[in-house]
């Protein structure tokens, strides 16, 4: 039953200053298998695959590929040995066509006509419709990923590494991807699949290696375990159960109507006629694939982007033309996606970072004068209430881990007792424990009678939190629907996922 191992790692170790990123990691991936590498952020998954792909060299241990020692000095050597990798973030040139982009990534690209033919053949064989003559700028995220995958397939890899490939895909696009991976595995390619999405791993992967703090804690067949068991292995303890109880929708708090804004930058998205109402005690989830106006919507609510009078009304208070400080005083608070550099100043201490938003509501600034003692006390309160692991309020924001800084940033807003809180990607890149704490704090805030808007690309999170759900697609907001009873398929269609199913224009 066990097929020959295509790739085997034996006792791999790697240290960075102050961190043991990998410690004695051993596992193997058999031919024709989809093998999951599962772990929280910071568990050492990225370091491990970087070593396989030749971006980083291991300190200890050895790797074998097809029985041969595998010690690539750079990605080129790794590719030559038969390793291919699809990164989470694409490296494509928007202005070039699909074929040109693929040719750029090849060592010896064949003539254009021949390359186009090979792209068509591979895309047809694997059910990845793609027209080689199209410009990348016109492609959806799912289609861009296909370009990267086809680029890999043309190398005829023995081992294909996929780094969180579904994070940018709609559910329908993800299904299409798995069908392709299965086809590829059936031809004997080994696939190393990195993710923290438990459900897709349980459905699609044949085996799994679970990493925690750089070590292998378990290997299993993910189909034999529940998502909860897998999560417990990943985190090393029971997951906190989210408590949704005790909330009733009350009066309308926030009303957006006819909110339209031009794209603030060349790469930005224009907001088109956004309308929504948010009730007290309610959590409204806004889903969508990245780059469909999420950042712009948050900026339009935080006050970084101002809009026409009457477009943003909080409890009868017209805030359309108001800036961030006025909106905070009125009770409309926000926490942007980018923790370092947007929600917090990396070089400022946590105390100083409270002054970024909490000045007016917490009395940290009076007549323009900063009350440093009050700011420090508030920072300490946030650190204590939100269990932020840090030496103290004098620590620079950049010195905190992602999860801890996120807890601080969310805590800073929640503890100002907002009437409405808007968050974008509240648990992005955060370990499971911190994510659960952040989500619970949002639910608790809603229970206390505030309204919460959660903008996220994580559908599981939106389903877990929100009472109503709407989708943001190319700057347009769909009508909200009650989350209860909504299936993933329906959500996918709301997200405009239909474009993943189109027959390609070949």
């Amino acid at each position, binding site marked *: 039953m066990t097929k020959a191992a295509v790739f085997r790692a034996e006792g791999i170790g790697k240290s960075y200053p102050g961190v043991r990123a990998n410690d004695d990691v051993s596992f193997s991936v058999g031919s024709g298998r989809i093998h999951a590498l599962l772990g929280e952020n910071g568990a050492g998954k990225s370091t491990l695959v970087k070593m396989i792909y030749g971006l980083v060299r291991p300190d200890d241990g050895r790797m074998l590929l097809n029985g041969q020692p595998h010690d690539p000095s750079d990605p080129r050597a790794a590719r030559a040995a038969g390793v291919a990798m699809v990164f989470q973030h694409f490296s494509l040139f928007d202005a070039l066509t699909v074929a040109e982009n693929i040719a750029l990534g090849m060592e010896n690209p064949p003539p254009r006509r021949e390359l186009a033919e090979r792209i068509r053949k591979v895309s047809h064989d694997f059910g990845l419709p793609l027209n080689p003559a199209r410009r990348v700028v016109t492609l959806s995220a799912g289609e861009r990923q296909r370009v990267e995958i086809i680029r890999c397939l043309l190398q005829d890899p023995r081992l294909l590494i996929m780094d969180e490939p579904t994070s940018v895909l709609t559910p329908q696009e993800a299904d299409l991807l798995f069908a392709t991976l299965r086809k590829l595995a059936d031809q004997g390619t080994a696939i190393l699949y990195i993710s923290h999405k438990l459900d897709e791993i349980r459905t699609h992967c044949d085996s799994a290696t679970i990493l925690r703090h750089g070590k292998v804690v378990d290997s299993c067949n993910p189909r034999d375990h529940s998502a909860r068991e897998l999560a417990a292995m990943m985190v090393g303890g029971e997951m906190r159960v989210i408590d949704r109880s005790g909330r009733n929708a009350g009066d309308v708090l926030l009303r957006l109507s006819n909110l339209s804004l031009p794209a603030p930058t060349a790469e930005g998205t224009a907001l088109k006629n956004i309308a929504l109402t948010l009730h007290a005690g309610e959590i409204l989830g806004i889903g969508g694939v990245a780059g469909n106006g999420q950042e712009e919507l948050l900026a339009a609510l935080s006050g970084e982007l101002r809009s026409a009078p009457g477009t943003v009304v909080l409890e009868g208070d017209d805030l359309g033309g108001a800036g961030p400080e006025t909106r905070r005083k009125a009770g409309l608070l926000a926490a942007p996606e980018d923790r370092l550099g*947007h929600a917090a100043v990396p070089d400022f201490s946590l105390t100083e970072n409270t002054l970024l938003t909490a000045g007016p509501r917490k009395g940290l600034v009076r007549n323009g004068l900063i009350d440093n003692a009050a700011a420090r006390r508030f920072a300490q309160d946030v650190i204590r209430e939100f269990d932020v692991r840090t030496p103290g309020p004098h620590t620079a924001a950049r*010195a905190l881990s992602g999860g801890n800084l996120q807890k601080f940033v969310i805590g800073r807003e929640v503890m100002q007792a907002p009437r409405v809180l808007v968050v974008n990607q509240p648990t992005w890149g955060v370990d499971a424990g911190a994510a659960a704490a952040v989500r619970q704090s949002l639910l608790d805030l809603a229970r206390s009678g505030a309204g919460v808007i959660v903008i996220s690309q994580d559908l599981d999170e939106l389903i877990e939190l929100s009472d109503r759900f709407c989708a943001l697609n190319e700057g347009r907001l769909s009508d909200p629907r009650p989350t209860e009873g909504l299936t993933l398929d329906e959500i996918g269609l709301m997200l405009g996922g239909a474009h993943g199913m189109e027959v390609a224009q070949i």
Partner: protein
Amino acid sequence: MIRLVPRAEASAAWQFATPLLAVLATMLTGGLLFAVMGYDPVAAIRTIFWDPLFGMASSYSRPQLLVKAAPLILIASGLAIGFRAGIWNIGAEGQYIIGGITGAAVALAAYPSEGMWIFPAMVIAGAMGGWAWGMIPALLRNWFGASEILVSLMLVYVAERVAAWMAFGPMKNPEGFGFPGSRNLQQYPAAANPELIAGTGAHWGVVAAAAAVLVTWFLMSRHIRGFHIRAAGLAPRAARFAGVRPGTLVAFCLGLSGAFAGMAGLFEVAGPAGQITDSFGSGYGFTAIIVAFLGRLNPVGILLAGLLLALTYIGGELAQLTLQLPAATVQVFQGMLLFFLLGFDLLTRFRIARRITA
């Protein structure tokens, strides 16, 4: 092999050590340079750094210290605020010249009437002139996205031309026997900026510089606007999130540094310089950039750096007189200071490690 390893956090000790190291390195390399040129390096260094304060001619040169340091500190205090916000006013020299001209214009218009109002009105006019000259790059940046670095710098040369035109044209002294240059304000008591305490060199500009140090220290460390300025320099998006409007900040910083430079120009024209001439610009506006960085953009640091740079000015002149060192010495010295400071600055963010060769 030696290589640089980034530090996790900027080293506080090196923040203080680098300016001192830079001064030391300047002395050493400067001495080496003098030795190569055939001068006694020890005598030259002593003439520049020691004699102005404690040497034979110190009764003349010591007051000069405050006279030279005041405009440097006043201008650098304003510049540092913009530099903290990432707004680069390189044209303080131009704002200084225009401030001198507008301030002098009030005096020349009022001449020969007497009145307590004249000098205060000149100070306000000088500040307004510098402010207006600083607002040109601010508005061009806000409206058209023009680089304030280039615009402010180029406006220096425009200001120099304006000064020459004033000296030869509208402001020319009618009783000046045809020589270019305005009336000498030192001889017009209502408009003069005299030495306040005899023998110290302290004039109103020194008072203004001291006030500027206090005001900017208060602004940057106690006031929310100073906090926003620092945030904008470190993380512009976070500052916008906090409620800072970038355009307003650009106008504030360029306006404030322009006003400070303009005031410095006024105190100079009404005091040590005495008149508007075609060579009124004397490089204070550029040297103040060195002062701002040497002082770590910190008000107290700027105070010390301003005094040090003033010392190199006076010491350099003294060395020209007594040792016949070339006039360019001072500039070489000041250039070396900035060069070494920026070089050693690397050590605040990086540490040196030996590469272990396999």
